[in-house]
């Protein structure tokens, strides 16, 4: 069984409350940080831990922190990215809802390390009830002297606020998030300048995912060196995986990085195998944006090695035969799933969520959705498949933010690995009506 650092106490009764959280060692790390460490030492520990951003891109957190500009007399901000809108991802919700203080403690300790007097948690609007849970936790923390002036007599002052979004996937992109936090439309900014130089209100800002910030707590507690011993190679520590789709046990699992994918899918400690005794067809391993892989390539790399749940192993083979760990949104599809129909669903999502600033993304996502809809409805031609391939290639890398890439990769990978299925749709449209694709709700009730 994997070691748990973030969710060790998720089932403890009342762990949402400050007193219970403290009884289980909560805020010890903050106390250690404020009383025995300098901000620089904390940054060094985070560097030593090898922690990588858990929001999707996997950028080394310690390095990001050390880029933060520190001009004299200018405010610095820590902003927590709790937008969590990548389809297939629901780990941050789980963590915040169950153990809100784990995030609050991480926010305070990280802010101390960064010299941020104020921090904001930007949470997607649909998580309104979770925002209220965080507000309650923050109020408790103020009352206990863990927020506000002179925290734990350390001389460190800090205020933390929750900001709700209002429904826009793009606001998970860090510069769109900052725009939204400033009260504007969520249009991503052109980089550079990076937020570390000019972020919120033009001030130096660090944006980190919920899970990244929460992971700072055990790192302070156990030291970076100890944290780095967990995992494989450059994939250190534990990771929350949101598992969904056609599996027996969907849910959020904290794994030590390095668990074999096969074990993750079939072991009763995790997904518990495919629903209704069906065969595995494909997996989207890191949220809807990452390339889809067919069963044989998700279980083993092209060179026949067992595929592991690590940043490196999942991307082994590049996009030709690999994928990405991404946000850890692990969507499993069984043998009855139509890859073409699922792709149409994804493409509709990206078209709906494109902010519209960049023409390749704004026009391309709509075009891909329409073509796929045509194909799904039985009106597609082989040329349409060629055209899809062409369009996705003209979006990737040609937009201000990576939403364009996120829209292109699912299309490219589906065509790369499931070309036959596309050809069936466009050459034998009469066979489409026999494709089952999704479970009927009454079947679920019986299962």
């Amino acid at each position, binding site marked *: 069984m994997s070691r748990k650092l973030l969710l060790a106490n998720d089932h403890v009764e009342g762990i949402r409350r400050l007193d219970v959280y403290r009884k289980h060692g909560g805020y010890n790390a903050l106390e250690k940080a404020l009383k025995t460490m300098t901000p620089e030492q904390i940054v060094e520990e985070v560097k030593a831990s090898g922690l990588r951003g858990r929001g999707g891109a996997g950028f080394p957190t310690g390095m990001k922190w050390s880029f933060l500009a520190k001009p004299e007399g200018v405010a610095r901000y820590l902003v927590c990215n709790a937008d969590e809108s990548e*389809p297939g*991802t629901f780990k941050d*919700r789980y963590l915040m809802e169950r153990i809100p203080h784990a995030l609050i403690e991480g926010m305070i300790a990280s802010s101390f390390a960064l010299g941020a007097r104020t921090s904001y948690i930007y949470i997607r609007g*649909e998580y*309104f009830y979770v925002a*209220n849970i965080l507000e309650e936790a923050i109020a408790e923390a103020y009352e206990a002297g863990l927020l506000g002036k002179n925290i734990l007599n350390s001389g460190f002052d800090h205020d933390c606020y929750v*900001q709700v979004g209002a429904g826009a996937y793009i606001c998970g992109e860090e510069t769109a998030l900052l725009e*939204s936090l400033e009260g504007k439309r969520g249009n991503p900014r052109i980089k550079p300048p990076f937020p570390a130089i000019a972020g919120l209100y033009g001030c130096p800002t660090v944006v980190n995912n919920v899970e990244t910030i929460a992971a700072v707590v055990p790192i302070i507690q156990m030291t970076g060196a100890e944290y780095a011993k967990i995992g494989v190679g450059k994939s250190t520590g534990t990771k929350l995986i949101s598992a969904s789709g056609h599996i027996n046990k969907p849910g959020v699992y904290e794994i030590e990085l390095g668990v074999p994918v096969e074990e993750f899918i079939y072991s009763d400690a995790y997904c518990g195998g495919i629903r209704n005794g069906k065969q595995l067809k494909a997996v989207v391993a890191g949220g809807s944006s990452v390339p889809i892989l067919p069963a044989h390539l998700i279980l083993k790399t092209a060179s026949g090695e067992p595929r592991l749940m690590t940043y490196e192993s999942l991307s082994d083979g590049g996009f030709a035969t690999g994928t990405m760990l991404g946000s850890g949104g692990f969507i499993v599809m069984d043998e009855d799933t139509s890859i073409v129909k699922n792709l149409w669903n*994804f493409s509709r999502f990206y078209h709906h969520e494109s902010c519209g600033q960049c023409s390749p993304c704004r026009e391309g996502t709509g075009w891909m959705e329409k073509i796929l809809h045509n194909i799904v409805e039985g009106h597609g031609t082989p040329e349409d498949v060629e055209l899809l391939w062409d369009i996705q290639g003209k979006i990737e890398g040609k937009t201000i933010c990576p939403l364009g890439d996120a829209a292109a990769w699912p299309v490219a990978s589906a065509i790369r690995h499931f070309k036959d299925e596309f050809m069936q749709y466009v050459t034998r449209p009469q066979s489409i009506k026999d494709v089952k694709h999704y479970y009927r*709700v009454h079947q679920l009730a019986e299962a």
Partner: protein
Amino acid sequence: MSQIAFNEEALKTAQRIIARYPKGKEKSALIPLLHLAQAEFDGWLSPETMDYVASLLSIQSIEAYEVASFYSMFNLQPVGKCVLEVCRTSSCWLLGAEDVVRHIEKRLGIHVGETTADGMFTLKTVECLGSCGTAPMLQCGADYYENLTLEKVDNLIANLKQDGSRRTYPKPAPVKIES
């Protein structure tokens, strides 16, 4: 003169929200205040409501319109008391979201995007709400209804009807003012 104005309690909440941001950056309160206004004024944002919110922040009305129209949670048209928002994205769809949508359409006699004649229900489809492990799901007001079956949906509709009250996102909880 705009007819619309927050009551005393809502105005206090609004002021507390505005106090979270540095001087000169009050515009950051726009999205939270639009949420508050939507909850206060029948679940949608009329031009008058947006003008009022803009006036509270001393910004141009167009700044409120352009933001309100960007985000999917803001309704720019009147909606029913209960907006049923069914997730239509991948994991939910793989597990029967389409059945849920069709079932509600039949039960309420409306299509996606429409409101029942009695003004009780509006049916919407939305993108992944972070509930994929408990698919299929729908949201109504702030509440998540997960692991749906058609029976559960019927039950929910009956209960909401009986209760009869408007389901809006809750007003933001009170926040701590700068220490």
